[in-house]
């Protein structure tokens, strides 16, 4: 069964203090790994899709990397507006599940707080 584990559960940073969030995954062949940002009471906002080990993507202060077992979301010089919960999800490289869809498994997220 596909599994996604995110760590830490919560992270408190000073403004400008760079850090990384971890997403460890177990999947029977990776089709895609997704990072989302979710603000309280809102839907997840898409950040990145990574497809293969060694791939990297950047957007402003965020950089996502992928290995065969985990992904990191690096936050460089964060600002208070980066405070949110960051979700990781994986989709397996299977044709179809018994119910006919390519399942996406989500982690429980890392809640990031950036203090001015």
């Amino acid at each position, binding site marked *: 069964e596909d599994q996604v584990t995110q760590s830490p559960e919560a992270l408190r940073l000073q403004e400008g203090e760079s850090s990384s969030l971890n997403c460890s995954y177990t999947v029977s062949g990776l089709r895609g790994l997704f990072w989302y940002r979710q603000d309280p009471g809102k839907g997840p906002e898409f950040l990145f899709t990574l497809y293969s080990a060694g791939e990297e993507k950047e957007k402003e202060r965020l950089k996502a990397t992928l290995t065969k077992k985990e992904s990191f979301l690096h936050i460089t010089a964060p600002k208070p507006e980066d405070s949110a919960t960051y979700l990781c999800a994986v989709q397996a490289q299977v044709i179809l599940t018994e119910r006919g869809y390519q399942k996406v498994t*989500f982690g429980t997220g890392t809640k990031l707080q950036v203090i001015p």
Partner: protein
Amino acid sequence: EADIYQTPRYLVIGTGKKITLECSQTMGHDKMYWYQQDPGMELHLIHYSYGVNSTEKGDLSSESTVSRIRTEHFPLTLESARPSHTSQYLCASSGRETQYFGPGTRLLVL
């Protein structure tokens, strides 16, 4: 601008009432999804659709029903709301792998 919309954003309703949560997308995506999310918990898929007239139940058992009569519209209906249905409901759509989410509907059943 292509987007995905959900209404209402917040709903407080009494037990036994019938409710419909609306979801529309203007991205031309064939696949659409409904997820349920409780605070601090992961998203659980309750319904999905691969296209018009195609709907299936997801992994999480739900008493809700869905319909897909038009590509852009994927409403979710609860025939008789109960307090156990209190949650956040998220609608998403995808073209290929990446799912894009709406703003969510926060439902409180008294």
